[in-house]
């Protein structure tokens, strides 16, 4: 169980980071969402994995740790607010620059700056 859970977090992190490193805003937003899934699951796991231990008093014998749950609950909502904010940033970039490159430049420049530098060297 733990191994599967760890692999899930690893995959979410890897996919998220790969997308965050892309050059266009939309994949970056998707990547951030994946990353925040991974982070939320990780934080949740600090309370360890419990089966049938919902922290409702009187519903069970052994309770799962409620504290990480409370923290992650607000993290999910804040994560949504952050995603919304970044999406809107991307839209504003699209509106102002008529382009969706993360560097926020006008449409004319299409090649990557970093790439250009590398080839220039």
């Amino acid at each position, binding site marked *: 169980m*733990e191994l*599967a*859970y*760890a692999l*899930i*977090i*690893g*995959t*979410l*992190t*890897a*996919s998220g*980071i790969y*997308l*965050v490193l*892309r050059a266009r*805003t*939309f994949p*970056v*937003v*998707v*990547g951030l*969402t*994946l990353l925040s899934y991974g982070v939320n699951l*990780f934080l*949740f*796991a600090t309370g360890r*994995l*419990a*089966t049938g231990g*919902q*922290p409702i*008093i009187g519903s069970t014998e052994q*309770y799962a*740790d*409620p*504290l990480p749950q409370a923290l992650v*609950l*607000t993290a*999910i*909502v*804040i994560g*949504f*607010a952050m*995603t*919304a*904010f970044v*999406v*809107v940033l991307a*839209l*504003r970039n*699209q*509106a102002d620059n008529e382009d*969706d490159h*993360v*560097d*926020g430049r006008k449409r004319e420049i299409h090649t*990557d*700056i*970093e790439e250009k530098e590398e080839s220039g060297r």
Partner: protein
Amino acid sequence: MTLSLVVLLPFLGAIAAPLFAQAGRTAIAIASSVPALIALAMLFPHWTTLAEGGVFQESHSWLPAIGISLSFRLDGLSLLFALLILVIGLLIILYARYYLKPYENVGKFYALLLCFKGAMLGIVLSSNLLLMLVFWELTSLVSFLLISFWNQKQDARRGARMALAVTGGGGLALLAGILIIGRIVGSYELDDVLAAADLIKAHELYPFALTLVLLGAFTKSAQFPFHFWLPHAMQAPTPVSAYLHSATMVKAGIFLMARLYPVLAGTDQWFFMVSFTGMVTLLIGAYVALFKHDLKGLLAHSTVSHLGLITLLFGMNTQLAAVAALFHVINHATFKASLFMAAGIIDHETGTRDMRRINGLWRFMPHTATLAMVAASSMAGVPLLNGFLSKEMFFAESLSLNLPGIWAYLPPLVATVAGIFAVAYSARFIHDVFFNGKPVDLPIYPPQEPPRYMKIPVEILVFACVMVGMFPAISIGPLLHAAAFATLNGDVPEYHLAILHGFNLPLLMSFLAFFGGLLMYSQRQRFFDFHARFKEIDEKAVFEKVAMWLEDRAAAITARLENGSLQRYAMLLVASAVVVALSPIERLGIFIGSNGLSPIDWPTLIGAAVLVLTALGTAALHRDRFYALVMLSVVGLLVALTFARFSAPDLAMTQLSVEVVTIVLLMLALYYMPSWTPIETSWPRRLRDLTIALTAGAGMTIITLAMLTQPFDSISSYFIANSKPGGGGTNVVNVILVDFRGFDTLGEITVLAIAALGIYAMLKNTALTPPPGDGLGHPWTRDAHPLMLKQIARPMLPLALMVSLYIFLRGHNLPGGGFIAGLITAVALVLQYIASGIGWTEDRIPMRYHNVIGLGLLFATIAGAGSLAFGYPFLTSAFGYITWPVVGKFEVASAMVFDLGVYLTVVGATLLALVSIGKLSPHSAIKSTKGGM
């Protein structure tokens, strides 16, 4: 006695003084004098104790963890400097009253002057070295502001910047030096440092500490090669030059050498560094002073030279020389401050400071001329004036240095040559200005005597010069003795203050200097011609050049690191995190803790497999954005299931509803954006990114695995035990959110609200035209709001609202609560927007979501503040039970009001964000109205 008050008073005065600016210059001058007068009155009763070597201490704890305390110390040395600062400060205040023009910003000037006075008193009275450094830097800053007081002049701004750069840089070196001393001693308190003198001198870090401290002292006291800032600081108003740049601030470095004299002096390194620097400064200053045509330029270089003389005396490593140095500090302050004031008067009355034009002023202002001539004679070292006495002591000390062989002749030779130059430039000051024919082309003609009171400060200082010169033992003896006692740690040598010590070698040197100087001045034209052959180095231009070069280099380095590419920043950020984490993770290896692995069941395994595959799929298929989005929604749903699987029903419900809103949000965004991501990056870069991503993923897997298999200890048992009795609810997660950690939640919904308002602000007045189709050649569907969706969505609304109410009410005891209920309501409303369009929905829900957010925050805050009214801390919750008909016994908690606030904020924020995006398209309003019909 409260020493801290002495330091604090001028700062308080600096705040109060500008209030009198409206009432005129006299009023503000009187107001500005008050702090110094009070301070003097406070110091006066303690004179006898201090004269006998007594010490007053005062200490308050400030930052004990790093060894900084607000501790002050008053002994003979600090008294000497404090008196100079206070008394000359008073005279400057009076002088500046007449120097400044009525239309100038006198409030600012006096405020800065008082700030400077406070900082300077802080330096001399601090007993903690770090505290002293704080005041030290403060004087640099205020000096910067005072030099650039006439900030409309470019020269003033440049001079100020140069002074700040040099003295500020020296301050940094001093900080490093003090830190080393503190490290050696283990304390920054002056008492401890003075007691550890032998320890410091024997320590291997002593050379570094000494060099760094001396760098601080030399930059502040304008020693070669840092002397160049002082002449350029003469762009300041003359009262500032007289106060800061002759009497006080430039003496701060000297003070530091005196203060740390028992600790740092006495070694060969001290001897060579200090005496050599002093000697070079003495000569260079004296030489250049002769050739300056600017009155203040001459005085500035003469100041440099005299500061070099004092430094040289300290460097000689003998106690008598140290006494002579302290004596010269007093004498130089009196004659130089009065000379600066006289120069200011001449500038004021003639409109120029160029000695080639100012001639023969004796006829116009005999009173000022007399005063200036006496002061200048003291500067030259004419007998019966104070300058003569300390210079005589200096000559005597230069003879008594036991240097090997021919080197023994060097100090007396240097001293005599410098003396000759000093007499020559003093003679020039007297003869060129007051005699030597008629004035040439003065901007103000004829010059007149200045206002009566403007001369009083000069008169007082000149009187002091004469008094000390004629009756040294009575007038200055006790104070000098007290200062020497403190400087030398009680080990004061036998010395004798008298006008004449008989006919000896020092007297001969004085004669040589006097007549040599007069001869040199009479032959000045030859020297001027000689000097004119060398090209003058413009220090300001050199400094600007160096500064520009540094700026360019810094900009170039910054540009290399910061090329404006977010992609690169993100890569560097992630890559450095990976690099930092790499070695601990590698050491950890694949670690299975003592709890071991638990068996997995088939449904969970399948769920995990799907989650992994869809997560990978999202990344792999990201170019087709729509597919990526679909994949992402599957990932989100499975995350919700994961929460449900591992005993977190609240999280599952939250994740589920957030998932819906997130996907709607991203779909909306995709409507305005290209639906396809082009291939732009080369494969090596993609490979690099993939490597970073996979490494990070592997690292997270290892960390998670290690964490999950470790036993742990949680603080949660408290929450579980107290949830029902303390918070009145059985859903521990919800009770934590609205009760135990309610303050966190309040902060979090505030962040939510700010994010939503930020979104609204960013999109206000922004128009985005969506592309006509999906980018792959398919046009959008014509039917924006399909009939079936509309028909299903409308009856859903009341149902969904009821569910949301139910979830909200039960939240305290069963999974649910404000967050989840808010999200469900938001989803229900968003569905109406999607199905029927913004126009249609807004017609029917006439609500401004800003207000909903505001109301939510208000409720949450009131619920928290309510407990304050009953004398409990913020956000203490109260609860009770009421019995409703039909429903039965029902719990009512004040936390419920808080949760209502959470609910409203979540609804408002979510809808404000989504509706703002929905309204982006210029056609959306019209189109949706049409669709709604």
